[in-house]
């Protein structure tokens, strides 16, 4: 098959897998037909999955390589996005795919988050660079919904939810990346109650576009006289355009597009340098009415955005996996290893080669594993919503799990995503390195996921520094308790026994390492914590993934028993066998590493601290 990469959709998803997670593993059915999801039934869920997938393949997928090759540029001070993006934006909002999970009071359909993450996966998987514009728009509107004044909600939300206006988040500055508190942008209160905004923001995704009449930037800046550090930051609504209270556009708001980055990937997404108030004419409104709450407010958006990055990660990795799988069935090379002596043996598809199968199963297990993490997080969010105000203990349990899972979803998901894409290239061989096939773009696109929204190290510090001890440690205990319960119930599982043993060892290793780190905190050995936190996040994520894949496998094994014989049950039988073997593969090949890492961390090796800056190299 020839794969000239112009305006051709290469995206595909396995809808059977998505339906398995939603309905068979994570019990979406329990939520349907009841408040607050009363308007949702299984039919609606299925139709939404089918139609949003179709939309993603037909409208967004063909623009993925176009966006990559053409990229964005500036004309007359305005960003020009790749051909087709503007039309796709219009179609996206006409079709309503950005309002699946939006509250009904804002014209959305109020779906369970477990469903909206599935829809998001399709949109991002088909074209991750494009999907950033609407993704950030939703994120910004949710901040205004949560913290804005009634007047702000009335002005901004309808326009942002229906796609007339876009949104961004502006934290990063040249001297303030990971260290957000170093932000130098300033805000000075004006007599009209608004603020004069001045400063430079860097790397702003969607910082400019050519498809909306206005862009609502949420800008972190310091009010004159406010304390240094994150404590003194406030969040401002700053339009690209000035508007009146009715939303009519009055003119530019002194927000200048200073440049666009030339990047490794996500080339269809503008990454903008924005200069606010170069002419002292940039006006912003404080989000809400109280100054210096910028960080907690931005955290709301960051939580949503971090889950979003986890979603981007699985979306792209899954597309890379499924494309590599397709190619492995087409490409013929070499004989089957059983016939290695026979020069005339038939050439076989590379999927027959054991090492290609290993790579494929490795990708499958990891893709499905990180997807499990996300659907689980989403299901806990739904559990929180359902129990809120009714059952405090249940609500707090669910919310605690969401908090705990966010850094895992973001950091583990994105680290894995890049590695899965890299494996996909390896499956292709030489053509994987060319632009005739989509794997190299997936790989380039996915690298950013471990960097933005807080680098993965920052995520690991969030995990060990905040999340482990959150709620007096109750969230972690509940998490480990849930896994312990599964292990106890399945210790003598006839098919999964050996895998459960590996899970148990990993479970003990994570518990032990968490205790060890607590010890370091208590004994003032703080310097060890950042040395190990990245690896601890990985250990905990692998434990979670191993567990969730095995839960899936145990369900798959049960369901296989009820299948019809022969052709009729063949498709499901193969599907369930795939679920079972992916879980077994992960348990037998990845989980043992958790125990090993625990041992390594236990040795408290400090070489990386001991080495002096000059000892790294002589240049």
């Amino acid at each position, binding site marked *: 098959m020839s794969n000239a990469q112009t305006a051709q959709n290469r995206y595909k998803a396995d809808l059977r897998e998505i339906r398995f997670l939603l309905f068979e593993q994570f019990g979406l059915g329990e939520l349907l037909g009841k408040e607050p999801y009363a308007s949702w039934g299984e*039919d609606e869920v299925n139709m939404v999955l089918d139609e949003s997938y179709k939309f993603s393949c037909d409208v967004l997928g063909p623009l993925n390589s176009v966006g990559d090759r053409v990229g964005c540029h500036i004309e007359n001070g305005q960003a020009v996005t790749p051909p087709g993006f503007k039309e796709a934006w219009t179609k996206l909002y006409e079709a309503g795919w950005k309002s699946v999970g939006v509250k009904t009071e804002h014209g959305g359909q109020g779906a369970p988050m477990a469903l909206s993450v599935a829809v998001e996966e399709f949109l991002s998987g088909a074209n991750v660079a494009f999907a950033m514009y609407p993704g950030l728009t939703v994120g910004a509107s949710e901040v205004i919904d949560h913290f804005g004044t009634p007047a702000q909600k009335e002005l901004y939300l309808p326009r942002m939810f229906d796609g007339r206006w876009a949104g961004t988040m502006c934290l990063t500055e040249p001297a303030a990346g990971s260290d957000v508190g170093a932000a130098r942008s300033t805000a000075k209160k004006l007599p009209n109650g608004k603020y004069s905004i001045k400063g430079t923001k860097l790397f702003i995704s969607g910082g400019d576009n050519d498809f909306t009449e206005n862009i609502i930037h949420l800008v972190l800046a310091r009010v004159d006289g406010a304390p240094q550090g994150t404590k003194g930051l406030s969040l401002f609504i700053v339009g690209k355009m000035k508007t009146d209270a009715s939303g009519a556009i009055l003119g530019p708001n002194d927000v200048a597009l200073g440049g666009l980055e030339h990047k490794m990937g996500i080339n269809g997404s503008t990454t903008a340098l924005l200069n606010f108030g170069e002419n002292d004419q940039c006006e912003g409104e404080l989000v809400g009415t109280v100054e210096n709450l910028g960080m907690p407010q931005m955290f709301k958006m960051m939580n949503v955005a971090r889950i979003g990055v986890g979603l981007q990660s699985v979306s792209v990795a899954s597309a890379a996996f499924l494309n590599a799988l397709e190619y492995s069935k087409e490409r013929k090379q070499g004989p089957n290893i059983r016939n290695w002596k026979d020069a005339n043996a038939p050439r076989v598809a590379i999927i027959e080669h054991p090492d290609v199968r290993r790579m494929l199963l490795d990708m499958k297990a990891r893709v499905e594993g990180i997807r499990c993490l996300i659907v689980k997080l989403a299901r806990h969010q739904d559990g929180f919503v359902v129990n809120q105000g009714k059952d405090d203990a249940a609500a707090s349990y669910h919310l605690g799990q969401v908090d705990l899972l966010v850094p895992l979803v973001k950091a583990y998901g994105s680290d894995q995503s890049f590695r899965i894409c890299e494996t996909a290239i390896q499956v292709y061989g030489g053509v994987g390195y060319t632009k005739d096939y989509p794997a190299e773009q997936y790989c380039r696109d996915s690298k950013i996921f471990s960097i933005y929204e807080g680098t993965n190290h920052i995520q690991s510090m969030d995990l060990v520094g905040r999340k482990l001890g959150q709620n007096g440690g109750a969230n972690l205990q509940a998490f480990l308790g849930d896994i312990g319960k599964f292990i106890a119930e399945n210790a003598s599982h006839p098919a999964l026994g050996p895998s459960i043993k590996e899970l148990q060892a990993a479970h003990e290793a994570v518990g032990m390492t968490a205790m060890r780190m607590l010890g370091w905190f208590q004994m003032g050995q703080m310097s060890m914590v950042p040395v190990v936190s990245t690896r601890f996040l990985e250990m905990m994520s692998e434990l979670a993934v191993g567990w969730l894949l095995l839960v899936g496998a145990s369900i798959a094994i049960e369901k296989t028993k009820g299948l019809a014989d022969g052709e009729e049950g063949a498709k499901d039988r193969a599907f369930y066998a795939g679920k079972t073997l992916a879980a077994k593969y992960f348990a037998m090949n990845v989980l043992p590493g958790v125990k090993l890492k625990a041992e390594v961390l236990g040795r408290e090796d400090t070489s990386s601290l001991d080495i002096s800056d000059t000892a790294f190299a002589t240049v």
Partner: protein
Amino acid sequence: MKILVPLKRVADPENANKVKIAAPAGGLAPKIETTGLEWKPNPFDEYALEAALRLTENGTAVKARLGEVIVVTFGPAECDQTLRGALATGADRAIRVDVTDDQLDGDLVARALAKLVDQVKPDLVLMGKQTVDSDSNQVAQLLAAYLGWPQVTFAANIVNEDNKALKIGRVADGGQINVRVQLPAVVNVEDRVVNPKGVTSPPTPATHKYADGVRFAPLPAIMQAKKKPLEVKKLADLGVEAAPKVKYLGYEAPPARKAGVKVKTVAELVDKLKNEAKVL
């Protein structure tokens, strides 16, 4: 305008290689194996539905329906899904005539549709020119004959004149024939009817450009689809006898394609084209 659009689900043409015909050696298979196939609405029927929607709306404000589009299919309960899809895309109500696929032929469908037309009383029956599974291209023609209505086939563009007549450009060899047809009528369409300017129908402004192709089911309509009426009828309710004229004796797969040959010289190629392929 009230428009009846017959819809048929077909095995996904992109997965047509999954169609299994398990014929015994030297004989015919009694049926086509349909387990494991994925079903889709027949693309030409989707074009008919899109054209029908364009004829019953203002293209600049599609939420307000200005006419009625009724979709009908013949098939078992699983086909409700195809109808729900059409309702989600914008059709106003649906009818399923409950039959199994092997009880049907084009003539029976046409006779049943004729009875249904008596009940529903549409101004127009708009249908796909053929289904992509059996490619018969006969139901519209038969139906028009049974109804005694005028028919236009292979419509590539449609201009609505006050809901009383249609000006239709129909595809013909080497060009297009323009005809004008009084309603009620039976019209079948081909794919060009869903071009941005395929349908012109006031009050949609003549300057309005539709998106190319059929529309996507928008989310709010998907959520409403279950609330739209879907009626199930039996052939007997229509007073039609379930007696197909076509008897299916058996099935066999087309012969597998022979391996290609590499020719060494142009002369050899010309020779083969002349004497083997007989195309020169």
